[in-house]
């Protein structure tokens, strides 16, 4: 297994690392040397009493946990990058860092353009509000006026196939309906960058196809996509490039086909060794 910890640059194929400075305008996500540390407090204090008790015992010590270490990559405008890796490898943390939800402990993230984060399918819906109200709320979160959202309202509802449920509270929706709405809203707010975490895992085959089509459309329209999925076939279909994360480090990067194959291979090997160990 080849392990490359080097700095990775996702500029177009013929660009080599180092010449990237020349076309900085086109780089829309610039993650440089990002590390994220969480305090995994051994006992998480949620109360004064616990805090003081632990302080007395000298136990307010935190165990450091580095969710991401020295992550370094660039994404060019209109490119599509997938993050693959096993559970707990830091994919979602990386997405949240790029989205600006988590501030990196070290390093910096520079983003050129607006971001529509689709982190967990419900994408920040308020469950007591209806689909209609949630669409306006989500639009407002992206800085769009009500007028703008009104123009796109029908389009969103049509794409999500929720014509009959416009005024039903989201809490009464099925998980498929919520994710359809989430996808429809996030992809119609005209963001420069879409950040998608496991968004296509739900929904039936037909809807998934529709989503893939829309993503392809957006890519050709110049939208940049950062994509997380466990389905390597989907990654290959949607993304041009991929990064392979393990334990918070980049251990491989390149074209999505190549990286996905390596990743599936490693999973197979891991499975086999586990099997051998057991029997």
């Amino acid at each position, binding site marked *: 297994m080849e392990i490359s910890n080097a700095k990775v640059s996702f500029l177009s194929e013929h660009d080599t690392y180092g010449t990237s400075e020349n076309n900085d305008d086109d780089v829309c996500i610039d993650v440089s040397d990002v590390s994220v540390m969480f305090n995994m407090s051994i006992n998480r204090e949620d109360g004064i009493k616990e805090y003081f008790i632990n302080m007395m015992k000298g136990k307010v010590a935190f165990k450091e946990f580095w969710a991401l270490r020295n992550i370094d990559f660039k994404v060019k405008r209109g490119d599509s990058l997938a993050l693959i890796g096993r559970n707990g490898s830091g994919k979602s943390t990386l997405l949240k860092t790029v*989205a600006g939800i988590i501030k990196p402990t070290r390093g910096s993230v520079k983003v050129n353009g607006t971001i529509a984060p689709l982190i967990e399918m419900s994408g920040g819906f308020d469950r007591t509000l209806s689909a209609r109200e949630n669409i306006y709320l989500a639009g407002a*979160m992206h800085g769009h006026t009500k007028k703008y959202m009104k123009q796109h309202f029908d389009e969103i509802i049509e794409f999500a196939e929720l014509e009959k449920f416009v005024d039903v509270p989201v809490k009464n929706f099925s998980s498929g309906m919520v994710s359809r709405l989430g996808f429809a809203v996030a992809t119609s707010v005209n963001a420069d960058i879409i950040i998608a975490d496991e968004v296509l895992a739900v929904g039936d085959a037909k809807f998934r196809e529709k989503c893939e089509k829309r993503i392809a459309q957006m890519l050709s329209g110049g939208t940049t996509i950062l994509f997380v999925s466990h389905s390597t076939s989907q990654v290959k279909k949607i993304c041009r490039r991929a990064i392979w994360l393990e334990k918070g480090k980049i251990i491989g990067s390149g074209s999505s086909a190549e990286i996905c194959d390596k990743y599936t291979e490693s999973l197979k090997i891991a499975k086999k060794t586990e099997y051998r160990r057991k029997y």
Partner: protein
Amino acid sequence: MVGKKIDEFMNYVPFLKEVIKRDFKKKYYKSFLGVAWSMLSPLLLMVVMSIVFSTIFKRSIPYYPVYWFSGNLLFGFITQGSQNVMNSMMANASLIKKMKIPKYFFCISSLTQQFIMEMFSLITYFLIEIVFGVPFTFNVFLFFIPMIYAYVFTLGLGMFLCSYATFLRDLDYLYTIIRRLWLYATPIFYPIDIIPAQFRFLWELNPVYIYLSIFRDLTLNGVMPSERSFIIATLYSVITLILGIVAFKEKEDRFFLYL
């Protein structure tokens, strides 16, 4: 730097509107009278308090129900508002964890929602002033000055509390008790005259008392408050807001770990 902040703020104004609207809807979800409660409940409480206390304080307070109402209005806004701001991160955890929105917006939205409700109570307040025949002076039109002081002070206090309450949830319970103590330490249902003169300075340390006496002077007693009280009120508000912002700025990056 400041220009950029203002741009960012303007960009999120539609969001602020939507969130305030949503909070209103949620607050009065399945309530028959809805917003009317913010006018009705202080009115009913006023009746209760007047029955209990008006005989005791009849001599020193001419319009007892109005006197009590004005105190309850301002005090209720400051304490309930600061408690709402304190809990605003927890209340909006699902959004904060998924979207990049400046976090102070949730402080502003929860306080503004409380402020709008106070405006409804204010209408009731002016109505009962008419009903009880409180003599009219043009000073009444300056009522917004103490309201602005109260808003700025409450935002600062709430943000300061929020910076710590997000990590220590006990503060919420503790604050409920402090609110009660604060209630008795503020002349809401009793006149300030019952406090011996040598202890009065202690009451001046209480910002709510300062705001309240300005508010009562303007709207009830029909006199112009002294310059000194305006200066003290401004100082209290500005200093609290600065403290709140500093504490909030320092802690906000770690909020998401505790939500």
